[in-house]
Protein backbone atom coordinates (compact mmCIF):
# COMPACT_ATOMS: atom_id res chain seq x y z
CA UNK A 1 0.00 0.00 0.00
CA UNK A 2 1.42 3.40 -0.99
CA UNK A 3 0.62 6.41 1.17
CA UNK A 4 -0.54 9.29 -1.03
CA UNK A 5 -1.50 11.59 1.81
CA UNK A 6 0.61 11.42 4.99
CA UNK A 7 0.86 13.24 8.28
CA UNK A 8 3.31 16.02 7.54
CA UNK A 9 6.74 16.20 9.14
CA UNK A 10 6.20 19.94 9.26
CA UNK A 11 4.00 19.47 12.31
CA UNK A 12 4.72 17.78 15.61
CA UNK A 13 2.47 14.87 16.57
CA UNK A 14 0.85 16.86 19.36
CA UNK A 15 -2.95 16.97 18.94
CA UNK A 16 -4.00 20.61 18.80
CA UNK A 17 -6.11 22.48 21.34
CA UNK A 18 -8.16 24.10 18.56
CA UNK A 19 -11.94 23.75 18.67
CA UNK A 20 -13.57 21.11 16.45
CA UNK A 21 -13.86 22.45 12.89
CA UNK A 22 -11.58 25.43 13.48
CA UNK A 23 -9.49 25.82 10.34
CA UNK A 24 -6.42 26.98 12.22
CA UNK A 25 -5.62 23.28 12.13
CA UNK A 26 -5.91 23.14 8.35
CA UNK A 27 -3.71 26.22 7.93
CA UNK A 28 -1.12 24.82 10.35
CA UNK A 29 -1.03 21.62 8.33
CA UNK A 30 -0.67 23.42 5.02
CA UNK A 31 2.18 25.60 6.30
CA UNK A 32 3.81 22.50 7.80
CA UNK A 33 3.48 20.63 4.51
CA UNK A 34 4.99 23.54 2.57
CA UNK A 35 7.96 23.85 4.92
CA UNK A 36 8.53 20.11 4.77
CA UNK A 37 8.11 19.80 1.00
CA UNK A 38 10.45 22.74 0.32
CA UNK A 39 13.02 20.94 2.46
CA UNK A 40 13.58 23.94 4.70
CA UNK A 41 12.32 22.59 8.03
CA UNK A 42 15.89 22.36 9.37
CA UNK A 43 16.63 26.00 8.54
CA UNK A 44 13.31 27.60 9.44
CA UNK A 45 12.28 29.57 12.48
CA UNK A 46 8.67 30.58 13.03
CA UNK A 47 7.15 33.21 15.26
CA UNK A 48 3.94 32.37 17.09
CA UNK A 49 1.48 35.13 18.07
CA UNK A 50 -0.67 35.69 21.11
CA UNK A 51 -4.17 34.46 20.39
CA UNK A 52 -5.62 31.04 19.57
CA UNK A 53 -2.38 30.19 17.80
CA UNK A 54 -0.32 31.05 20.88
CA UNK A 55 0.55 27.37 21.15
CA UNK A 56 1.65 27.17 17.52
CA UNK A 57 5.22 26.93 18.79
CA UNK A 58 4.29 23.45 20.08
CA UNK A 59 2.72 22.41 16.77
CA UNK A 60 5.20 23.52 14.11
CA UNK A 61 8.04 21.01 13.93
CA UNK A 62 10.80 23.61 13.60
CA UNK A 63 12.52 26.19 15.82
CA UNK A 64 9.88 28.61 17.10
CA UNK A 65 9.58 31.90 18.95
CA UNK A 66 6.69 32.91 21.12
CA UNK A 67 6.25 36.63 20.53
CA UNK A 68 4.36 39.19 22.56
CA UNK A 69 0.94 40.21 21.26
CA UNK A 70 1.21 41.87 17.88
CA UNK A 71 4.98 41.99 17.77
CA UNK A 72 5.77 38.90 15.69
CA UNK A 73 6.81 40.96 12.64
CA UNK A 74 9.34 42.80 14.84
CA UNK A 75 10.67 39.53 16.29
CA UNK A 76 10.87 38.13 12.75
CA UNK A 77 12.71 41.25 11.61
CA UNK A 78 15.33 40.72 14.31
CA UNK A 79 15.69 37.06 13.44
CA UNK A 80 15.79 37.44 9.65
CA UNK A 81 18.17 40.41 9.71
CA UNK A 82 20.57 38.42 11.88
CA UNK A 83 20.29 35.11 10.06
CA UNK A 84 19.19 35.96 6.51
CA UNK A 85 20.08 32.46 5.36
CA UNK A 86 17.24 31.05 7.47
CA UNK A 87 13.61 30.96 6.44
CA UNK A 88 11.50 33.00 8.83
CA UNK A 89 7.73 33.13 9.06
CA UNK A 90 5.15 34.59 11.39
CA UNK A 91 1.76 33.04 12.02
CA UNK A 92 -0.67 35.60 13.34
CA UNK A 93 -4.36 36.14 13.99
CA UNK A 94 -6.43 39.22 13.13
CA UNK A 95 -6.37 40.68 16.63
CA UNK A 96 -2.62 40.12 16.86
CA UNK A 97 -1.71 41.49 13.44
CA UNK A 98 -4.43 44.01 12.54
CA UNK A 99 -5.11 45.53 15.93
CA UNK A 100 -2.26 45.80 18.44
CA UNK A 101 0.34 44.77 15.86
CA UNK A 102 -0.70 47.03 12.98
CA UNK A 103 2.33 49.30 13.18
CA UNK A 104 4.64 46.29 13.21
CA UNK A 105 3.14 44.64 10.12
CA UNK A 106 2.91 47.89 8.14
CA UNK A 107 6.52 48.79 8.81
CA UNK A 108 7.86 45.28 8.26
CA UNK A 109 6.09 45.31 4.89
CA UNK A 110 7.30 48.79 4.14
CA UNK A 111 10.91 47.90 4.97
CA UNK A 112 10.47 44.93 2.67
CA UNK A 113 11.58 42.42 5.33
CA UNK A 114 12.28 39.15 3.55
CA UNK A 115 10.10 36.89 5.68
CA UNK A 116 6.68 35.32 5.20
CA UNK A 117 3.56 36.28 7.12
CA UNK A 118 0.64 33.89 7.46
CA UNK A 119 -2.27 36.11 8.56
CA UNK A 120 -5.28 34.14 9.75
CA UNK A 121 -8.42 36.25 9.45
CA UNK A 122 -11.40 34.75 11.29
CA UNK A 123 -13.15 38.03 12.02
CA UNK A 124 -13.10 37.55 15.80
CA UNK A 125 -10.86 37.26 18.87
CA UNK A 126 -10.86 33.54 19.63
CA UNK A 127 -8.56 32.84 22.58
CA UNK A 128 -10.00 35.59 24.76
CA UNK A 129 -13.53 34.43 24.11
CA UNK A 130 -15.11 36.11 21.10
CA UNK A 131 -14.53 39.84 21.18
CA UNK A 132 -14.63 42.06 18.10
CA UNK A 133 -11.56 42.07 15.87
CA UNK A 134 -10.59 44.74 13.32
CA UNK A 135 -11.84 42.27 10.70
CA UNK A 136 -15.21 41.59 12.37
CA UNK A 137 -17.99 42.09 9.82
CA UNK A 138 -20.55 44.92 10.01
CA UNK A 139 -23.45 43.86 12.24
CA UNK A 140 -21.56 40.74 13.28
CA UNK A 141 -22.20 39.95 16.92
CA UNK A 142 -19.30 39.47 19.31
CA UNK A 143 -18.93 39.70 23.05
CA UNK A 144 -17.91 43.34 22.64
CA UNK A 145 -20.44 44.07 19.92
CA UNK A 146 -23.44 42.37 21.54
CA UNK A 147 -25.84 44.26 19.25
CA UNK A 148 -23.70 43.64 16.18
CA UNK A 149 -20.70 45.68 15.02
CA UNK A 150 -21.99 49.26 14.57
CA UNK A 151 -19.89 50.74 11.78
CA UNK A 152 -20.69 54.23 13.04
CA UNK A 153 -18.94 53.46 16.31
CA UNK A 154 -16.45 50.73 15.43
CA UNK A 155 -15.85 51.46 11.79
CA UNK A 156 -15.67 48.94 8.97
CA UNK A 157 -13.60 45.75 8.83
CA UNK A 158 -10.01 46.32 7.70
CA UNK A 159 -8.85 44.66 4.47
CA UNK A 160 -5.23 44.20 5.52
CA UNK A 161 -4.02 42.62 2.29
CA UNK A 162 -5.31 45.50 0.17
CA UNK A 163 -4.01 48.04 2.66
CA UNK A 164 -0.51 46.59 2.61
CA UNK A 165 -0.48 46.44 -1.17
CA UNK A 166 -0.71 50.24 -1.38
CA UNK A 167 2.87 50.40 -0.08
CA UNK A 168 5.43 51.08 -2.80
CA UNK A 169 7.96 48.54 -1.54
CA UNK A 170 7.77 45.34 -3.62
CA UNK A 171 5.90 42.45 -2.01
CA UNK A 172 3.84 39.35 -2.69
CA UNK A 173 0.42 39.86 -1.10
CA UNK A 174 -2.36 37.35 -1.59
CA UNK A 175 -5.55 36.27 0.09
CA UNK A 176 -6.77 32.69 0.21
CA UNK A 177 -9.26 30.73 2.28
CA UNK A 178 -9.42 27.48 4.22
CA UNK A 179 -13.16 26.98 4.47
CA UNK A 180 -13.35 24.23 1.83
CA UNK A 181 -10.97 21.52 0.62
CA UNK A 182 -10.81 23.15 -2.83
CA UNK A 183 -9.80 26.51 -1.34
CA UNK A 184 -7.29 24.75 0.88
CA UNK A 185 -5.60 23.28 -2.22
CA UNK A 186 -5.36 26.81 -3.64
CA UNK A 187 -4.12 28.14 -0.28
CA UNK A 188 -1.26 25.65 -0.26
CA UNK A 189 -0.15 26.74 -3.74
CA UNK A 190 -0.08 30.39 -2.67
CA UNK A 191 1.67 29.71 0.65
CA UNK A 192 4.28 27.62 -1.14
CA UNK A 193 4.80 30.46 -3.62
CA UNK A 194 5.23 32.90 -0.72
CA UNK A 195 7.94 30.73 0.88
CA UNK A 196 9.61 30.31 -2.51
CA UNK A 197 9.77 34.09 -2.94
CA UNK A 198 11.42 34.20 0.48
CA UNK A 199 13.93 31.47 -0.33
CA UNK A 200 14.83 33.40 -3.48
CA UNK A 201 15.21 36.54 -1.37
CA UNK A 202 12.77 38.38 -3.62
CA UNK A 203 10.53 40.33 -1.31
CA UNK A 204 8.26 40.56 1.74
CA UNK A 205 5.51 37.93 1.44
CA UNK A 206 2.09 38.08 3.06
CA UNK A 207 -0.73 35.57 2.78
CA UNK A 208 -4.09 36.39 4.39
CA UNK A 209 -6.00 33.20 5.04
CA UNK A 210 -9.72 33.43 5.76
CA UNK A 211 -10.58 31.02 8.53
CA UNK A 212 -13.57 29.86 10.55
CA UNK A 213 -14.28 30.18 14.28
CA UNK A 214 -17.26 27.92 15.02
CA UNK A 215 -17.15 28.46 18.78
CA UNK A 216 -17.13 32.23 18.80
CA UNK A 217 -19.33 32.63 15.74
CA UNK A 218 -21.83 30.45 17.56
CA UNK A 219 -22.18 28.13 14.58
CA UNK A 220 -21.44 24.49 13.83
CA UNK A 221 -18.30 23.78 11.79
CA UNK A 222 -20.49 23.14 8.72
CA UNK A 223 -22.47 26.36 9.19
CA UNK A 224 -19.24 28.25 9.80
CA UNK A 225 -17.86 27.21 6.41
CA UNK A 226 -21.10 28.47 4.83
CA UNK A 227 -21.07 31.69 6.84
CA UNK A 228 -17.53 32.44 5.72
CA UNK A 229 -18.51 31.82 2.11
CA UNK A 230 -21.65 33.95 2.31
CA UNK A 231 -20.52 36.80 4.59
CA UNK A 232 -16.75 37.09 4.38
CA UNK A 233 -15.86 36.19 0.79
CA UNK A 234 -17.72 39.13 -0.80
CA UNK A 235 -15.92 41.56 1.53
CA UNK A 236 -12.53 39.83 1.42
CA UNK A 237 -12.00 38.84 -2.25
CA UNK A 238 -9.55 36.00 -2.84
CA UNK A 239 -6.55 36.06 -5.15
CA UNK A 240 -3.14 37.64 -5.60
CA UNK A 241 -3.36 41.35 -4.80
CA UNK A 242 0.23 42.35 -5.32
CA UNK A 243 3.16 40.61 -6.95
CA UNK A 244 6.82 41.60 -7.00
CA UNK A 245 6.74 41.28 -10.80
CA UNK A 246 4.28 44.21 -10.97
CA UNK A 247 6.86 46.55 -9.41
CA UNK A 248 8.02 49.21 -11.90
CA UNK A 249 10.88 50.61 -9.86
CA UNK A 250 8.68 52.90 -7.81
CA UNK A 251 7.74 55.10 -10.81
CA UNK A 252 4.12 54.82 -9.84
CA UNK A 253 5.01 56.22 -6.45
CA UNK A 254 2.99 59.30 -7.15
CA UNK A 255 5.38 61.04 -9.53
Amino acid at each position, binding site marked *: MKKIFAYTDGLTRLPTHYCPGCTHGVIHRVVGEVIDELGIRGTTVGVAPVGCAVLAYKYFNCDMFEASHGRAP*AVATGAKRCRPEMSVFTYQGDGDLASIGMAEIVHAANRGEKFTVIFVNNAIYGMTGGQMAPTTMPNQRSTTTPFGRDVNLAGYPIRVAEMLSTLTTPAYVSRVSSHTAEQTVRAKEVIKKAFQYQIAGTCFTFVEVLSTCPTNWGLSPRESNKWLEKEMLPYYPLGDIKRPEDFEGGQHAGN
Partner: protein
Amino acid sequence: MAKVLMKGNEAIGEAAIRAGCIHFFGYPITPQSEVPEYLAKRLPEVGGVFVQAESEVAASNMIYGAAGVGMRVLTTSSSPGISLMAEGVSYLAGAELPVVIVNIMRGGPGLGGILPSQGDYLQATKGMAHGDFDLIVLAPSSVQEAVDLTIRAFQLAEKYRNPVMVVGDGMIGQMMEPVDFPEVEVGPPLAADDWALTGCEGRSPRDVNSLFLDANDLHNHNVKLKDKFAVITENEQEWELYSCEGEYDVLVTSFGMMARICKTAIDVLAEEGIKVGLFRPITIKPYPYDACREAAQKAKRLLCVEMNMGQMIQDVQLATRGAKEIDFFGKAGGVIPSVEDVIQSVRETLAKTGK
Protein backbone atom coordinates in the same frame (compact mmCIF):
# COMPACT_ATOMS: atom_id res chain seq x y z
CA MET B 1 45.35 51.81 22.39
CA ALA B 2 45.53 55.53 21.79
CA LYS B 3 42.90 57.62 23.56
CA VAL B 4 40.33 59.25 21.33
CA LEU B 5 38.04 62.15 22.18
CA MET B 6 34.49 60.90 21.76
CA LYS B 7 30.93 61.79 22.60
CA GLY B 8 29.44 59.41 25.16
CA ASN B 9 26.67 58.14 22.91
CA GLU B 10 29.10 57.34 20.11
CA ALA B 11 31.56 55.75 22.51
CA ILE B 12 28.79 53.46 23.73
CA GLY B 13 28.05 52.45 20.14
CA GLU B 14 31.73 51.74 19.46
CA ALA B 15 32.05 49.83 22.73
CA ALA B 16 29.23 47.52 21.65
CA ILE B 17 31.05 46.77 18.40
CA ARG B 18 34.26 46.03 20.31
CA ALA B 19 32.26 43.65 22.50
CA GLY B 20 31.30 41.74 19.35
CA CYS B 21 27.84 43.22 18.94
CA ILE B 22 27.18 44.20 15.32
CA HIS B 23 23.38 44.17 15.44
CA PHE B 24 21.42 47.23 16.53
CA PHE B 25 17.69 47.95 16.52
CA GLY B 26 16.63 51.32 17.90
CA TYR B 27 14.59 54.48 17.55
CA PRO B 28 15.49 58.15 17.72
CA ILE B 29 14.91 60.00 21.00
CA THR B 30 16.85 62.85 22.57
CA PRO B 31 19.37 62.72 24.25
CA GLN B 32 20.60 59.36 22.85
CA SER B 33 20.02 59.64 19.10
CA GLU B 34 23.74 59.80 18.38
CA VAL B 35 23.97 56.08 19.17
CA PRO B 36 21.74 55.00 16.27
CA GLU B 37 23.24 57.74 14.08
CA TYR B 38 26.78 56.52 14.81
CA LEU B 39 25.91 52.88 14.36
CA ALA B 40 23.99 53.54 11.14
CA LYS B 41 27.35 54.65 9.74
CA ARG B 42 29.63 52.17 11.58
CA LEU B 43 27.76 48.87 11.44
CA PRO B 44 27.85 48.48 7.66
CA GLU B 45 31.63 48.99 7.91
CA VAL B 46 31.89 45.89 10.11
CA GLY B 47 29.35 43.80 8.21
CA GLY B 48 26.74 44.44 10.87
CA VAL B 49 23.02 45.20 10.79
CA PHE B 50 21.38 48.50 11.68
CA VAL B 51 17.61 48.84 11.70
CA GLN B 52 15.67 51.93 12.67
CA ALA B 53 12.52 50.47 14.18
CA GLU B 54 9.09 52.05 13.90
CA SER B 55 8.93 52.44 17.68
CA GLU B 56 10.70 51.44 20.84
CA VAL B 57 8.02 48.79 21.31
CA ALA B 58 9.11 47.26 18.01
CA ALA B 59 12.80 47.68 18.82
CA SER B 60 12.42 45.77 22.08
CA ASN B 61 10.88 42.89 20.13
CA MET B 62 13.44 43.05 17.34
CA ILE B 63 16.24 42.48 19.85
CA TYR B 64 14.18 39.55 21.17
CA GLY B 65 14.31 38.07 17.67
CA ALA B 66 17.99 38.83 17.21
CA ALA B 67 19.07 37.40 20.57
CA GLY B 68 16.74 34.43 20.05
CA VAL B 69 18.70 33.35 16.98
CA GLY B 70 21.91 33.70 18.98
CA MET B 71 23.26 37.10 18.04
CA ARG B 72 24.69 39.75 20.35
CA VAL B 73 22.36 42.72 20.05
CA LEU B 74 21.98 46.25 21.41
CA THR B 75 19.21 48.77 21.70
CA THR B 76 19.45 52.20 23.23
CA SER B 77 16.81 54.72 24.19
CA SER B 78 15.91 57.37 26.72
CA SER B 79 13.37 57.27 29.55
CA PRO B 80 10.02 57.52 27.66
CA GLY B 81 11.36 55.08 25.07
CA ILE B 82 12.52 52.72 27.80
CA SER B 83 9.03 52.81 29.29
CA LEU B 84 7.68 51.69 25.89
CA MET B 85 10.11 48.77 25.98
CA ALA B 86 8.86 47.57 29.36
CA GLU B 87 6.72 44.68 28.09
CA GLY B 88 9.52 43.55 25.79
CA VAL B 89 12.02 43.54 28.64
CA SER B 90 9.76 41.31 30.72
CA TYR B 91 9.57 38.84 27.81
CA LEU B 92 13.36 39.03 27.36
CA ALA B 93 13.87 38.22 31.03
CA GLY B 94 11.24 35.47 30.95
CA ALA B 95 12.77 33.87 27.87
CA GLU B 96 16.26 34.37 29.37
CA LEU B 97 17.67 36.23 26.36
CA PRO B 98 21.05 38.02 26.56
CA VAL B 99 20.53 41.60 25.35
CA VAL B 100 21.97 44.97 26.31
CA ILE B 101 19.69 47.97 26.69
CA VAL B 102 21.12 51.42 27.31
CA ASN B 103 18.98 54.14 28.89
CA ILE B 104 20.38 57.68 28.58
CA MET B 105 18.01 59.14 31.11
CA ARG B 106 16.18 62.46 30.69
CA GLY B 107 13.87 64.49 32.89
CA GLY B 108 10.41 63.04 33.57
CA PRO B 109 7.66 62.17 34.18
CA GLY B 110 5.68 62.21 30.96
CA LEU B 111 7.30 64.02 28.10
CA GLY B 112 9.35 65.68 30.81
CA GLY B 113 12.40 67.29 29.33
CA ILE B 114 15.48 66.40 27.36
CA LEU B 115 18.07 67.35 29.96
CA PRO B 116 19.98 64.89 32.16
CA SER B 117 18.24 63.07 35.00
CA GLN B 118 18.48 59.94 37.12
CA GLY B 119 14.73 59.64 37.42
CA ASP B 120 14.53 56.05 36.11
CA TYR B 121 16.51 54.44 38.96
CA LEU B 122 13.52 52.68 40.51
CA GLN B 123 12.14 51.69 37.10
CA ALA B 124 15.44 50.04 36.16
CA THR B 125 16.16 48.39 39.49
CA LYS B 126 12.75 47.64 40.96
CA GLY B 127 9.79 47.94 38.66
CA MET B 128 10.74 47.67 34.98
CA ALA B 129 7.73 45.63 34.02
CA HIS B 130 5.25 42.92 35.00
CA GLY B 131 6.30 39.77 36.82
CA ASP B 132 9.11 38.71 39.08
CA PHE B 133 12.37 39.23 37.23
CA ASP B 134 15.63 41.08 37.77
CA LEU B 135 17.72 43.08 35.36
CA ILE B 136 21.43 43.58 35.88
CA VAL B 137 21.80 47.37 35.89
CA LEU B 138 25.14 49.17 35.55
CA ALA B 139 25.59 52.92 36.14
CA PRO B 140 28.66 54.56 34.61
CA SER B 141 29.89 57.94 35.83
CA SER B 142 32.13 58.84 32.88
CA VAL B 143 32.41 58.20 29.17
CA GLN B 144 35.31 55.81 29.76
CA GLU B 145 33.30 53.90 32.34
CA ALA B 146 30.34 53.87 29.97
CA VAL B 147 32.59 52.13 27.44
CA ASP B 148 33.90 49.64 30.00
CA LEU B 149 30.44 48.91 31.42
CA THR B 150 28.86 48.51 27.98
CA ILE B 151 31.45 45.84 27.20
CA ARG B 152 30.90 44.33 30.65
CA ALA B 153 27.15 44.36 29.99
CA PHE B 154 27.52 42.06 26.97
CA GLN B 155 29.72 39.71 28.95
CA LEU B 156 27.26 39.59 31.85
CA ALA B 157 24.27 39.19 29.52
CA GLU B 158 25.88 36.17 27.88
CA LYS B 159 27.22 34.70 31.10
CA TYR B 160 23.82 34.70 32.77
CA ARG B 161 21.42 34.76 29.76
CA ASN B 162 19.82 37.82 31.28
CA PRO B 163 19.00 41.26 29.90
CA VAL B 164 21.45 43.90 31.14
CA MET B 165 20.72 47.60 31.30
CA VAL B 166 23.28 50.39 31.33
CA VAL B 167 21.86 53.62 32.71
CA GLY B 168 23.61 56.84 31.93
CA ASP B 169 22.12 60.31 31.81
CA GLY B 170 22.08 63.11 29.33
CA MET B 171 25.54 64.27 30.38
CA ILE B 172 27.15 60.90 29.85
CA GLY B 173 25.49 60.63 26.48
CA GLN B 174 26.27 64.13 25.29
CA MET B 175 29.66 64.82 26.94
CA MET B 176 32.92 64.34 25.04
CA GLU B 177 35.80 62.77 26.95
CA PRO B 178 38.96 60.94 25.92
CA VAL B 179 38.43 57.19 25.92
CA ASP B 180 40.37 54.13 24.98
CA PHE B 181 38.75 50.90 23.89
CA PRO B 182 40.20 47.82 25.60
CA GLU B 183 40.97 44.78 23.47
CA VAL B 184 38.09 42.35 24.00
CA GLU B 185 38.28 38.64 23.27
CA VAL B 186 35.01 38.07 21.46
CA GLY B 187 33.61 34.55 21.24
CA PRO B 188 31.47 33.14 18.41
CA PRO B 189 27.82 34.12 18.12
CA LEU B 190 25.80 32.96 21.08
CA ALA B 191 25.02 29.40 22.11
CA ALA B 192 24.27 28.02 18.66
CA ASP B 193 24.80 24.58 20.16
CA ASP B 194 22.80 25.25 23.28
CA TRP B 195 19.54 27.20 23.07
CA ALA B 196 19.69 29.61 20.13
CA LEU B 197 17.19 29.13 17.29
CA THR B 198 19.61 28.34 14.51
CA GLY B 199 17.41 25.83 12.68
CA CYS B 200 16.68 22.30 13.90
CA GLU B 201 18.85 20.62 11.21
CA GLY B 202 20.41 17.62 12.90
CA ARG B 203 18.71 18.23 16.24
CA SER B 204 15.20 18.46 17.66
CA PRO B 205 13.39 21.80 17.40
CA ARG B 206 13.85 24.41 20.16
CA ASP B 207 11.68 27.28 21.21
CA VAL B 208 12.36 30.68 22.73
CA ASN B 209 9.36 31.37 24.85
CA SER B 210 8.14 32.85 28.11
CA LEU B 211 4.71 31.20 28.15
CA PHE B 212 4.07 28.57 30.86
CA LEU B 213 0.37 27.91 31.13
CA ASP B 214 0.85 25.32 33.89
CA ALA B 215 1.11 27.11 37.26
CA ASN B 216 3.76 24.78 38.65
CA ASP B 217 5.87 25.13 35.53
CA LEU B 218 5.69 28.91 35.76
CA HIS B 219 6.43 28.87 39.49
CA ASN B 220 9.46 26.65 38.93
CA HIS B 221 10.58 28.99 36.15
CA ASN B 222 10.37 31.91 38.55
CA VAL B 223 12.39 29.98 41.13
CA LYS B 224 15.02 29.30 38.47
CA LEU B 225 15.21 32.99 37.57
CA LYS B 226 15.48 33.96 41.26
CA ASP B 227 18.22 31.39 41.88
CA LYS B 228 20.07 32.79 38.87
CA PHE B 229 19.88 36.29 40.27
CA ALA B 230 21.14 35.06 43.62
CA VAL B 231 24.29 33.85 41.85
CA ILE B 232 24.56 37.22 40.07
CA THR B 233 24.17 39.01 43.40
CA GLU B 234 26.86 36.81 44.90
CA ASN B 235 29.39 37.39 42.14
CA GLU B 236 28.76 40.60 40.24
CA GLN B 237 28.34 43.46 42.71
CA GLU B 238 30.61 46.43 41.95
CA TRP B 239 31.05 49.69 43.81
CA GLU B 240 33.57 52.44 44.52
CA LEU B 241 34.61 53.90 47.85
CA TYR B 242 36.11 57.39 47.55
CA SER B 243 38.04 59.06 50.38
CA CYS B 244 36.82 56.42 52.82
CA GLU B 245 40.23 55.27 54.10
CA GLY B 246 40.30 57.13 57.39
CA GLU B 247 37.54 58.58 59.54
CA TYR B 248 34.68 60.58 58.15
CA ASP B 249 31.68 62.13 59.79
CA VAL B 250 29.48 62.13 56.71
CA LEU B 251 29.14 59.47 54.04
CA VAL B 252 27.73 60.69 50.75
CA THR B 253 25.93 58.07 48.63
CA SER B 254 25.48 58.82 44.97
CA PHE B 255 25.72 57.09 41.57
CA GLY B 256 26.52 57.85 37.95
CA MET B 257 27.48 61.35 36.89
CA MET B 258 26.15 62.84 40.13
CA ALA B 259 28.76 60.90 42.11
CA ARG B 260 31.53 62.56 40.10
CA ILE B 261 30.27 66.00 41.06
CA CYS B 262 30.19 64.82 44.69
CA LYS B 263 33.85 63.74 44.47
CA THR B 264 34.87 67.28 43.57
CA ALA B 265 32.85 68.61 46.50
CA ILE B 266 34.54 66.08 48.79
CA ASP B 267 37.99 67.18 47.54
CA VAL B 268 37.15 70.84 48.23
CA LEU B 269 35.89 70.00 51.74
CA ALA B 270 38.99 67.89 52.42
CA GLU B 271 41.14 70.97 51.87
CA GLU B 272 39.18 72.53 54.73
CA GLY B 273 39.96 69.46 56.82
CA ILE B 274 36.39 68.20 56.58
CA LYS B 275 36.52 64.46 56.03
CA VAL B 276 33.65 63.16 53.85
CA GLY B 277 33.46 59.71 52.28
CA LEU B 278 31.59 58.63 49.14
CA PHE B 279 29.93 55.31 48.43
CA ARG B 280 29.17 54.87 44.70
CA PRO B 281 27.40 51.72 43.50
CA ILE B 282 28.49 50.76 39.96
CA THR B 283 26.02 47.89 39.79
CA ILE B 284 22.81 49.51 40.99
CA LYS B 285 21.27 46.05 40.51
CA PRO B 286 22.41 43.91 42.27
CA TYR B 287 22.79 46.76 44.75
CA PRO B 288 25.90 46.41 46.98
CA TYR B 289 23.94 46.55 50.26
CA ASP B 290 26.65 45.03 52.47
CA ALA B 291 29.36 47.34 51.15
CA CYS B 292 27.08 50.32 51.62
CA ARG B 293 26.27 49.29 55.19
CA GLU B 294 29.93 48.82 55.99
CA ALA B 295 30.84 52.24 54.62
CA ALA B 296 27.98 53.78 56.59
CA GLN B 297 29.16 52.36 59.93
CA LYS B 298 32.07 54.81 60.19
CA ALA B 299 29.90 57.83 59.46
CA LYS B 300 27.71 59.69 61.92
CA ARG B 301 25.19 60.62 59.25
CA LEU B 302 24.55 59.95 55.60
CA LEU B 303 23.70 62.23 52.69
CA CYS B 304 22.18 60.79 49.55
CA VAL B 305 22.62 62.98 46.47
CA GLU B 306 20.71 62.21 43.28
CA MET B 307 19.36 63.87 40.14
CA ASN B 308 15.78 62.92 40.99
CA MET B 309 13.39 63.36 43.88
CA GLY B 310 14.86 60.54 45.94
CA GLN B 311 15.03 57.00 44.55
CA MET B 312 18.35 55.34 45.35
CA ILE B 313 17.87 56.59 48.91
CA GLN B 314 15.43 53.71 49.34
CA ASP B 315 18.27 51.27 48.71
CA VAL B 316 20.55 53.16 51.10
CA GLN B 317 17.82 52.85 53.73
CA LEU B 318 17.59 49.12 52.99
CA ALA B 319 21.36 48.83 53.33
CA THR B 320 21.63 50.70 56.64
CA ARG B 321 18.35 49.40 58.10
CA GLY B 322 17.80 52.56 60.14
CA ALA B 323 21.23 52.47 61.77
CA LYS B 324 22.02 55.97 60.49
CA GLU B 325 20.05 59.09 59.71
CA ILE B 326 20.03 59.74 55.97
CA ASP B 327 19.55 63.25 54.55
CA PHE B 328 18.62 63.71 50.91
CA PHE B 329 19.64 66.35 48.41
CA GLY B 330 18.39 66.12 44.86
CA LYS B 331 17.29 68.07 41.81
CA ALA B 332 15.09 66.75 39.05
CA GLY B 333 13.96 67.90 35.64
CA GLY B 334 17.44 68.38 34.25
CA VAL B 335 18.73 70.71 36.93
CA ILE B 336 22.28 69.55 37.67
CA PRO B 337 23.34 70.10 41.29
CA SER B 338 26.62 72.05 41.34
CA VAL B 339 29.69 71.34 43.45
CA GLU B 340 28.66 74.26 45.66
CA ASP B 341 25.16 72.81 46.06
CA VAL B 342 26.68 69.55 47.26
CA ILE B 343 29.13 71.31 49.57
CA GLN B 344 26.30 73.31 51.08
CA SER B 345 24.14 70.25 51.71
CA VAL B 346 27.12 68.40 53.24
CA ARG B 347 27.60 71.29 55.63
CA GLU B 348 23.92 71.09 56.60
CA THR B 349 24.24 67.36 57.23
CA LEU B 350 27.42 67.96 59.23
CA ALA B 351 25.64 70.55 61.32
CA LYS B 352 23.06 67.94 62.30
CA THR B 353 25.81 65.70 63.63
CA GLY B 354 26.78 68.44 66.11
CA LYS B 355 30.12 69.00 64.40
